[in-house]
């Protein structure tokens, strides 16, 4: 299970069995955009990509799940783990728009625990 491929930017053309992440800087914030399905196979890729973005110690990290079509509990656990990694030093924000991501976040009560916003503009403005 520890054979997760390298994160972010590696192979943006790879669709089906992975997620594609892209990172953009906005001042002292970093937005990590995810596209694809987040399940037990791909959750390690999400952790790796966001952890890499956190290494530069931005003030805010936004994980944008707007283009994520499937979010399993392994992905929820990854978000909780990343939130823990962000600690006090980094503000950790999530963007979730569709029911594929909002439903599991809401049903497990994680919308109360994590800062979830409908758009990345709102996540960056707060």
């Amino acid at each position: 299970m520890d054979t997760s491929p390298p994160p972010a930017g590696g192979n943006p053309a790879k669709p089906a069995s992975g997620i594609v992440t892209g990172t953009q800087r906005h001042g002292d914030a970093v937005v990590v955009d995810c596209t694809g399905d987040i399940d037990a196979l791909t959750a390690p890729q999400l952790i790796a990509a966001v952890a890499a973005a956190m290494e530069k110690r931005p003030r805010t990290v936004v994980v944008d799940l707007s283009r994520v079509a499937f979010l399993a509990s392994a992905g929820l656990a990854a978000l909780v783990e990343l939130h823990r990694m962000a600690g006090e030093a980094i503000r950790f924000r999530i963007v979730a728009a569709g029911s594929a991501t909002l439903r599991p976040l809401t049903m497990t009560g994680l919308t109360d625990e994590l800062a979830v916003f409908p758009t990345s503009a709102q996540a960056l403005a707060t």
Partner: protein
Amino acid sequence: MCPKRRPTSRSATRLHHRGAATAALATRLRRELHDWAAFAGIPADTVDDLTLSSYEAMANTVRHAYPAGTTGFLELHANLEREDVVVTVADNGRWAPTPDERDPVSDGSYDCHGLRLIHDLAAHSEVVRDERGTTVLMTWPRRSTDVTLPP
């Protein structure tokens, strides 16, 4: 990626696969189940709920059913019945036991998110543990239960 691509047996009313319990198989079967259910004309919201719940059950099998270093089987059944769509996920291992066997959601243990999603997303669900292994049974109505009257 997938070592042996054993085909999934599939008809308009039934989907079945039994194979070695791996994360890759769970991902593949999740996609096949989604397509099968969508093709069966099940409402889109139900297709999403069914896909996520079934995946969580399969992921639990992959993660918890068998001791590290061993692999047992993972079996997925989906059936269209007269009123309902029924999905079962079975293995012959033992999930990490929970303090309250009757209600595994309430124990607050390590990663209960998956079980919680199964119970919340399925119209009816039960987890049966016996000496043969663990079976998760989930059902949804085939048609939307929302009563939306025309304007």
